[in-house]
């Protein structure tokens, strides 16, 4: 009985968590592309104006970033200015929650058919590398190990802390700017 009453609240909390995580990740993608040369190198192979979307099917939360050139991303929130070039779609919000709460690695989620890729697979692989790199920076090592296939051996604490601080600062500034606007 109690479980039945709590369930809608749990679903709502899950929905809000996924939405918040998309907002953080979208801003963090923009930030990491301004901070990290490896991400810039990976992103620079994408065409200029390339729109990337991560979303929950059928019309749930989403994040959209655009490659604006030189390996830099711009976060567009949850609405795209034109049709996206690449979309990674979670089949259900429960699957998005598993990944965004770091209970399931992105690569495992792909292997488990939790997500669909609509667009060029090679770009999807590239974007997954960027997401992995981002998670390695912004998450504590113990948590990051649950999120990525392999924690990068060459990412040492000073670099991680410096980059994470810069990314979080940029994410916070972006949030403030959005609220002000």
């Amino acid at each position: 009985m109690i479980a039945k009453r709590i369930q809608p609240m749990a679903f709502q909390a899950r929905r809000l968590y996924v939405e918040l995580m998309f907002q953080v990740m979208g801003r963090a993608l923009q930030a990491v592309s301004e901070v990290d040369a490896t991400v810039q190198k990976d992103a620079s192979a994408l065409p200029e104006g390339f729109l990337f979307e991560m979303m929950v099917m059928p019309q749930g939360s989403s994040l959209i970033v655009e490659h604006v050139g030189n390996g830099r991303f711009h976060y567009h929130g949850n609405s795209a200015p034109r049709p996206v070039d690449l979309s990674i779609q979670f089949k259900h919000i429960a699957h998005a929650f598993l990944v965004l709460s770091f209970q399931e690695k992105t690569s495992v989620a792909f292997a488990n058919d939790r997500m669909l890729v609509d667009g060029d697979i090679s770009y999807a692989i590239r974007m997954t590398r960027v997401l992995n790199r981002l998670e390695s920076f912004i998450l504590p090592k113990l948590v990051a190990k649950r999120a990525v296939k392999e924690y990068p051996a060459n990412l040492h604490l000073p670099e991680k802390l410096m980059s994470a601080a810069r990314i979080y600062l940029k994410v916070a500034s972006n949030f403030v700017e959005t609220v002000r606007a």
Partner: protein
Amino acid sequence: MSNKYYEFFCPVKVIAGKAALEHIPYELSGMAATRPMIVTDKGVRAAGLLDPVIAACEESGLEIVSIYDDVPPDSSTAVVRDIAGVYRSEKCDSIIAVGGGSAIDTAKAVNILVSEGGDDIAAYAGAGVLKRPLKPFFVVPTTAGTGSEVTAVAVIADTEKHVKLPFTSSFLLPNAAIIDPRMTLTLPPHITAATAMDAMTHATEAFTCMAKNPLSDAYATAAIKKISNSLLAVMDNPKDADNRLELAEASTMAGIAFSNSMVGLVHALGHATGAICQLPHGLCMSLYLPYVLEYNIESIREPLGELLLYLDGPEVYAATPASRRAEASISAIRRMRDALYKHCKLPRTLKETGKVVEEQLERIAEVALDDGAIMFNPKEVTLEDAKAVLRRAWA
């Protein structure tokens, strides 16, 4: 609660064995199809492989309405459009693909156009675009390796835009795959070897990569056992129909396994090498398999060790300490490659192919890193890792 999750799907009716071709008329009639079109290539026709298919149909009073035998090795959107035009003008109602990967992929794409309408196959590219079943579609493989008869994927080149268009949908799967030993009896030794090693790689990667699952494991191990037992027997005696059938069945089983559990770094490197150096796919698979297994070994020690049972049999498996089985599996694959080199000079290193120069390794590694298969490799592959594997595979 377990975190395990998997999906498995294979609705293809497998019709395998002696006189399997003679089942085609009955199977077609069961789908109310009376005007089949054959899609094939010149090589298949020249080898006389169409004759038993046509004879089997005609003997049952089923007329093959049209035969398109000009599918190129890398099929294109223009070829697909042409074949769809013939299908429509001849009022066909079903397709029989007879051939290897290219003929089968082309026929899958033709089936999209003739079922959904239009002339622009690019409009149907991508995953999940198709929403309903297509026309009756049968596949008769003439090689024992690709497994295309049980995969829900087709790749067609758009020669105008210079891109490869991928099509993914369970509706691309044929209604039936007809595995008849007559179809592979005349395969030349080096193609027999390369395609069998392609199937071996499908099964090995299906069993050791990230999306492995209990059902795909069953198909993968059975395929490896059949290839290990039959490949060298066929190389010694190419007219051995029983072992030819074993290889053909293994190819289909490996296809079912990998289409449900995906593949890994061997395929990523193989796709890149094929694109850059124009090496045949099966040859690339045979070439890279042991080097990639060595690279992955610490992540796949347990499943790889288990494969020793199917590669070398129960006596060797039992006599090998558990801690050494993974290395013993790689040794068994290396021994098989050495035997194939003796038989038909199937290259074991990039240098032995004579078609790759060392300067290309960097580019191969870069392209491999963006290949979809790399996602399912059990180890995260960096550019340096890929280059290291390539250097080991060089000579």
